């Protein structure tokens, strides 16, 4: 190799290294030294967690901390897939990560990959959370995996304008009185679709099903597809079967708009206003407002759900061991899950606090939502939240849930209910293996 060509080669090599190096610079640099540290917070969902103002506040109180949020707009499925990979690989996750109610159980087995928040004084905060919410954040051997952010609770969101046009009562008290039970809810729906041929009553079978299942299981067995020993019981748990049957009954009554939850068509359904009611945990109010947009402001309202109340959804914040700043991250978790912060997040995106102090805070308890015709959302959602029994969701909850939801969608597409139930059990058992 001659000198000139060697020099040229060196130049090329250098150039490619330089190019690669600039590529690295785009990543989230892990800082060291005395400068300010950056804490990365991973969240999910269309609306995020509504923490923007809280970050600013925290940063101004802690000048050495910069906060960067990722994941707003990411669906729960994608989010959880990535988080699982990152946790297992021991790298890549944020310093603070959101753990959803249906997936936190899956991380119990990997508790050694998470900081035990009890080591950072979390146990002193026990009274800041509803007892059942606190329990859900604990691993079976008592480590504090995550601190609660919000709970779902349960109500029905409905289009008062469509109800009125279909000669149904539009006032939220009277609407709530229409449906003491889910059968009454279906009967109301039948009246609605008889009067209004252009709209369907509810968005989808799966949303209806999840609301019913979480309520039935909360009042009944206390678990869904997995019992508390993580045995798969999708075929034998009567709560699953009764929720499934109620849903197929609803479908055959012609009430469903057949929109797959969290899909394109579902969102277009909100935008075009093609259905009149939807099972509505507190976080759903943020989804509706975000998807339906200003055109439907004041046309939506909130009424109490049929049955006995229940909970669907809600999340926790935890700190993976891979964080380079576990202490600071834990402090941030404590701040973000404090009663005051939870009340603030409720104001922003409608996530119902999991802290009893926040729930009784007038800012929450007396809150109304102008998008939902000034409905007293604080009162409606908080009612009974503290007496709820938690529903245990197994480690592969999401996989089995997908299988059962698919079976319900096949009923919407014309399959016989009995055959679909066989599918649900068969595929659910394969998925939960």
């Amino acid at each position: 190799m001659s000198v000139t060509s060697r020099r040229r080669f060196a130049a090329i090599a250098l150039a490619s290294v330089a190019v690669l190096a600039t590529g690295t610079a785009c990543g989230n640099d892990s800082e060291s030294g005395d400068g300010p540290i950056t804490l990365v917070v991973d969240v999910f969902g269309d609306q995020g967690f509504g923490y923007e103002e809280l970050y600013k506040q925290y940063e101004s109180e802690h000048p050495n901390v910069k906060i960067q949020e990722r994941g707003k707009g990411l669906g729960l499925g994608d989010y959880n897939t990535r988080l699982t990979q990152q946790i297992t690989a021991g790298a890549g996750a944020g310093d603070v990560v959101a753990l959803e109610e249906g997936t936190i159980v899956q991380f119990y087995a990997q508790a050694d990959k998470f900081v035990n928040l009890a080591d950072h004084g979390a146990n002193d905060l026990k009274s800041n959370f509803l007892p059942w919410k606190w329990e859900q954040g604990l691993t079976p051997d008592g480590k504090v995996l995550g601190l609660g952010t919000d709970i779902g609770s349960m109500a029905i969101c409905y289009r008062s304008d469509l109800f009125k046009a279909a000669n149904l009562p539009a006032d939220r008290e009277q609407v709530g009185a229409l449906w003491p039970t889910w059968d009454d809810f279906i009967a109301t729906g039948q009246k609605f679709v008889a009067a209004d041929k252009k709209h369907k009553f509810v968005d989808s079978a799966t949303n209806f099903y999840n609301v019913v299942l979480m309520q039935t299981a909360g009042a009944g067995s206390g678990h869904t597809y997995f019992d508390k020993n993580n045995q798969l019981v999708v075929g034998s748990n009567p709560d699953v079967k009764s929720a499934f049957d109620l849903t197929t009954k609803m479908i055959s009554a012609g009430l469903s708009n057949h929109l797959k939850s969290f899909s394109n068509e579902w969102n277009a359904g909100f935008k075009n206003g093609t259905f009149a009611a939807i099972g509505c945990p507190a976080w759903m109010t943020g989804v509706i407002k975000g998807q339906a947009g200003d055109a439907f402001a004041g046309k939506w309202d909130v009424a109490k759900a049929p049955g006995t109340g229940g909970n669907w959804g809600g999340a926790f914040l935890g700190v993976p061991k891979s964080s380079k700043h576990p202490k600071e991250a834990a402090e941030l978790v404590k701040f973000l899950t404090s009663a005051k912060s939870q009340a603030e997040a409720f104001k922003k995106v409608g996530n119902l606090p999991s802290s009893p102090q926040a729930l009784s805070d007038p800012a929450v308890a007396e809150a109304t939502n102008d998008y939902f015709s000034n409905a007293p959302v604080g009162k409606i959602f908080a009612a009974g939240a503290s007496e709820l029994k938690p529903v245990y969701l197994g480690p592969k909850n999401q996989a089995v849930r997908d299988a059962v939801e698919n079976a319900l969608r096949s009923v919407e597409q014309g399959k016989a209910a009995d055959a679909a139930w066989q599918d649900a059990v068969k595929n659910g058992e394969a998925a939960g293996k």
Partner: protein
Amino acid sequence: MTSTMLRPPAVRPPAAGRPGLRHRAERLWTASPLTWIGLVIGVFLSLFPFYWMIVIASRTNDAANSWPPPFLPGGKLGENIQRVLDNGDANIITGLANSFLVSGTITVATVFFGSLAGFAFAKLRFRGKNALLLIILASMMIPIQLGVLPLYILMAKLEWLNTMPSVTVPFLIGGFGIFMMRQYAEQAVPNELIEAARVDGCSTWRIYWHVVVPALRPAAAVLGLLTFMEQWNQFFWPFVVLADPANPTVQISLRSLNTAYFADNSQIFAGTLIATLPLFVVFVLFGRQIIGGIMEGAVKS
């Protein structure tokens, strides 16, 4: 040999420059009306989705979801593009920059390493050559899905997750680039030239640089274009390793746009337009070479 077409001049457009052909044979190559109809339909189907992309991207979202569907462009293109660029979740500007960086780096590396190895396989003799070439051919058959899990763990150990090296380094040189350069070098670089250079005392590297590189230039251009296009459009692997929405490639930006704003079709289509535009420019400028390269590759293999 021109720089626009890779094909050696042996193949010409049919019947060109062949005077004195019998009338009947001449007629063989004329296009019947049916041919024209077929071609026009083909072109229509091929171009319509592009046109439709512009139609939806230039309208409001309400029009995009209306019935019957719109068929004429509206006046909202600039506004929709602005909304995509401003979109905090998609980070499409970062995505474009990253995609340029990644695709560019891989393109340069592929052309360089590909021509180097292609030259070695075509013109140098060494032990185990055929076996090594067979490994390269076989490597082209291995889907990335096969090792996605170990690769992910590897990236995590290297601390490359969410950074551009994770989607760059594994693709710096692939079997296709080497194979294509080998095929081309075999015919384009005369053995005599290499021998002569050796006699003049050139090292192998100098032969590569002064003899082989100039001869491979047309093929290198085509390989570069094809590589750039392929890398620009990568989806599966970036989807797995780039979990940070703040630091995506442009295809991942599109996916974020789709998950976060799926009901907003005009914005999504404006996004696809932006993501496709760079390759459209490449295609307009270098379409002839790309087509020449595709056709050339076909004859070779």
